């Protein structure tokens, strides 16, 4: 039975069948009615052995297989030799990851397929988490909305751990020679903080919002490969303990970049690092291929490229850039593992290898990675700016070209990190040129945002404030980046706190600020609750003031010559470091208040209407809570999503009018009536 027939039988107007609030007259939602009539399968009886698998069995499986791997490898290898102790550690960690994935049920589907007993519809419904309540967040659940929320939680956990390490590092630096942390501990914290934050910032937009929001935004029912979606998430979860284990095995004394040959000589903590990177790279590749395929093949009818929201472009650009970049990083770590465990010579000059090989592979990932992080955060803000300025996005085509320009140039700038390394000095000039050129498409994105804000009727929310903060921070990060792209200036500033301040202004000032803005914007759709704006403003100002105090102070001491990654410093840098540490405490307090806001609002915040901001993209056209299949009738898009302005009343504050109508210009598939012709969605 088609949904249209069902709608007709149940007495709903065809234009209303998108909404679960349209009841059949027997108290059933459309989804329930479709299930009753056999149009949708149920999860009852499905799942088989997968019903018993969850996060606890995953941990048990991981621990059991890791213990087995350790026992066997330890038994057969002489562990007095550092090489073989590295082999034991790598085998143990690899076994953990395999056991964890088996325990969560990642292999159940392929295993049954191999046995000729592929998953049934009921199994798929079980995998999608149907009727499993909170439990579905702890399972191998394929529903993209669940995966999006899981990514959000993982991101917050990573940010909390990385932030804790940052507070400890800054406390150690509050005065010269504080001796709060030993140098070994400090070095290890620097490495762990760096890599944890890099992973967290890579996933912080494309993970939660790319999975939860993007499929709905393009009018799809789910991702192209739902099981791969869950696989990418749980691989990431498996990688987190592997990474943290480094802290208990001598740490990561190399900084997050793990340069060889330092990494060749480091303690077994390095094995935790490289195994985590390998797992994370696989996770990212799977996620990237999935998101790209979803956007290329599952956009709603009528959603041409000129009608595709800019957020979708940004996410695709990010994961598309990560697809070739992260394997470079993974390859470097695999070679490092060979060096450490099998007397490989990839990075050892005396054996015919080259440390420059590592640096090239690392930065072939490392610089595109900056844009992997920043592009989705900036485009998330570009997506919400028209909503809160009540104006169309200024020059959509320029925005797309800006993104394309950044992506194209970002793979041609990596060696500006290696000016001082002595590798190919003749290429310093060309790399300086490409690096400085990338400021042009980046500037275009700035102009698009400023042009959208210009003469807009601004609705000042935390999300919109994040746009202003991003502009301020990213300009500082960008301009100082131009200094660093300049070869002579870089020779003076390389390896100093100036560099640290610069990349925090881009990754945190623009990236994390963008992610927080996106969280305030899409939280009502993800949870059905509003984040408190009042609490949000308090945390916003604490974080932004603290951030600028911290990193402007760091610029000052960096310019004066303080090297980075050093656990103490001469007295001449005392004032700047003291100021930076106080600023960092403000950031910490502000982020904790943000955490409180998320938890308390999620539990007991104001119930969100379906479209609290008056947004026009498709995610605002579905009800809260969002049905399992998102749309009961797939939409057809007949215009772009940025038609804000004329004849469009400024949306009232959500408290005053929580029933603000959603008015996307779309029609149910096969129908000629637009939903905007109806009297408003029954939220």
């Amino acid at each position, binding site marked *: 039975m088609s949904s249209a027939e069902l709608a007709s039988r149940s007495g709903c107007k065809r234009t209303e069948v998108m909404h679960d609030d349209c009841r059949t007259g027997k108290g059933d939602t459309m989804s329930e009615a479709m299930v009753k009539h056999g149009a949708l399968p149920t999860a009852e009886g499905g799942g088989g052995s997968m019903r018993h698998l969850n996060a606890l069995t995953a941990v048990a499986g991981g621990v059991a297989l890791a213990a087995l791997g350790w026992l066997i490898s330890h038994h057969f290898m002489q562990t007095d030799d550092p090489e073989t102790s590295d082999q034991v550690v790598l085998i143990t960690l690899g076994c953990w990851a395999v056991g964890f994935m088996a325990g969560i049920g990642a292999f159940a589907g392929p295993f049954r397929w191999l046995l000729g007993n592929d998953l049934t519809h009921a199994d798929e419904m079980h995998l999608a988490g149907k009727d499993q309540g909170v439990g579905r967040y702890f399972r191998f659940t394929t529903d993209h909305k669940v995966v999006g929320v899981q990514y959000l939680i993982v991101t917050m956990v990573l940010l909390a751990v990385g932030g804790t390490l940052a507070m*400890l590092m800054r406390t150690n630096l509050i005065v010269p020679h504080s001796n*709060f942390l*030993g140098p070994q501990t400090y070095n290890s914290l620097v490495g762990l903080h760096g890599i944890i934050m890099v992973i967290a910032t890579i996933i912080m937009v494309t993970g939660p919002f790319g999975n939860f929001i993007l499929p709905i935004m393009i009018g799809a029912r789910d991702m192209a490969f739902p099981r791969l979606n869950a696989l990418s998430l749980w691989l990431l979860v498996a990688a987190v303990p592997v990474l943290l284990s480094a802290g208990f095995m001598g740490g990561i*004394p190399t900084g997050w970049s793990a340069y060889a040959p330092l990494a060749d000589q480091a*303690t077994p903590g390095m094995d935790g690092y490289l195994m985590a990177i390998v797992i994370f790279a696989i996770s990212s590749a799977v996620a990237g291929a999935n998101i790209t395929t979803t956007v290329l093949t599952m956009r709603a009818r009528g959603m041409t490229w000129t009608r595709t929201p800019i957020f979708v472009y940004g996410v695709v650009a990010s994961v598309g850039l990560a697809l070739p970049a992260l394997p470079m990083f993974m390859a470097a770590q695999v070679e490092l593992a060979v060096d450490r465990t099998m007397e490989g010579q990839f990075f050892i000059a005396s054996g015919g290898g080259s440390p420059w090989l590592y640096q090239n592979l690392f930065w072939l990932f490392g610089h595109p990675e900056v844009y992997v992080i920043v592009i989705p955060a900036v485009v998330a803000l570009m997506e919400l700016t028209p909503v809160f300025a009540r104006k169309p996005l200024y020059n959509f085509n320029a925005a797309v070209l800006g993104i394309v320009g950044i992506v194209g140039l970002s793979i041609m700038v990596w060696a500006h990190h290696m000016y001082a390394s002595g590798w190919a000095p003749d290429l310093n000039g060309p790399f300086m040129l490409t690096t400085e050129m990338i400021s042009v498409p980046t500037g275009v994105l700035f102009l698009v945002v400023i042009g959208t804000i210009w003469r807009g009727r601004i609705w000042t929310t935390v999300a919109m404030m994040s746009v202003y903060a991003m502009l301020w921070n990213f300009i500082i990060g960008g301009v100082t980046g131009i200094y660093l792209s300049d070869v002579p200036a870089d020779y003076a500033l390389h390896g100093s706190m100036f560099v640290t301040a610069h990349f925090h202004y881009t990754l945190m000032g623009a990236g994390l600020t963008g992610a927080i803005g996106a969280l305030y914007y899409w939280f009502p759709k993800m949870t059905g609750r509003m984040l408190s704006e009042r609490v949000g403003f308090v945390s916003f100002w604490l974080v932004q003031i603290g951030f600028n105090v911290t990193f402007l102070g760091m610029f000052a001491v960096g310019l004066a010559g303080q090297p980075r990654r050093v656990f103490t410093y*001469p007295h001449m840098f005392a004032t700047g470091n003291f100021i930076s540490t106080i600023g960092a405490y403000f950031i910490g307090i502000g982020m*904790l208040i943000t955490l*409180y806001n998320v938890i308390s*609002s999620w539990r007991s915040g104001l119930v969100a209407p379906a479209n609290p901001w008056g947004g026009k993209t498709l995610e605002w056209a579905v009800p809260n809570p969002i049905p399992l299949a998102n749309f009961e009738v797939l939409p057809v898009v007949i215009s772009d999503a940025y038609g804000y302005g004329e004849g469009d009343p400024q949306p009232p504050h959500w408290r005053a009018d929580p029933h603000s109508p959603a008015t996307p210009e779309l029609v149910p598939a096969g129908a000629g009536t637009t939903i905007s012709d109806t009297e408003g969605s029954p939220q």
Partner: protein
Amino acid sequence: MDARRTLTGGALTVLGGALVVTLTGIVLHRDGAEAAALSATVKGTAATSRGVLPHAFLKLATYPDSMAGAHGPGGGVHPDWVTYGPTSALKVPAHSLVTITIDQYDGGETITNPYFATVRGTVGGTMTVDGKTLTKTSPDAVGHTFTIHAAPSNQDPLFVSVPLPAVAEDAPVAPNSDYPAPHVVTFSFITGGPGEYVWNCEYPCGDGYYAKFGGAMSSRGYMSGTFTVS
């Protein structure tokens, strides 16, 4: 969300976060803080090229394992790592003549960088090894080096590097000792104003199959430490 509940909840979250950071910091501090410093003993004065200065003395040793250092009972976490002793945090007076004596118990091989086989930065550019005055030692038989570096800053520069000759591999264990008889190396240098410096061994005597710069060489407290002029 009422204001009182918001304030209470927010404050508790901040306090909880601060507590987590504090507890983590305490654990890491206990595990990783630098050892207590060994201060040089000042005994009278000495005539130097910079006039009459206080004369301070330090006594150190290098061991082929960590059983005799300051790493706790049984050698600590890495009993088989080479180490300096009795500690790696050293403190000497400013504007003084400092004389350091090192008992070198460990063997050695060819040093990677022969630059560090020559005595540098000491009074007269010399050291005494078992009573003989030398300006360098054979690069093929270096056990360790004691090398003080200064970070770029506005404090007085200080660079001292002394090679410690290797004890022969077949040297017999000395009576009432776990080690062979050591080479006794003595050298002196003059300190400037107060400053924070680091010292380390430049002979790759650590862990890792490549170049031996891992393990004891890449972990503070064994073959490297702080050198405070105060």
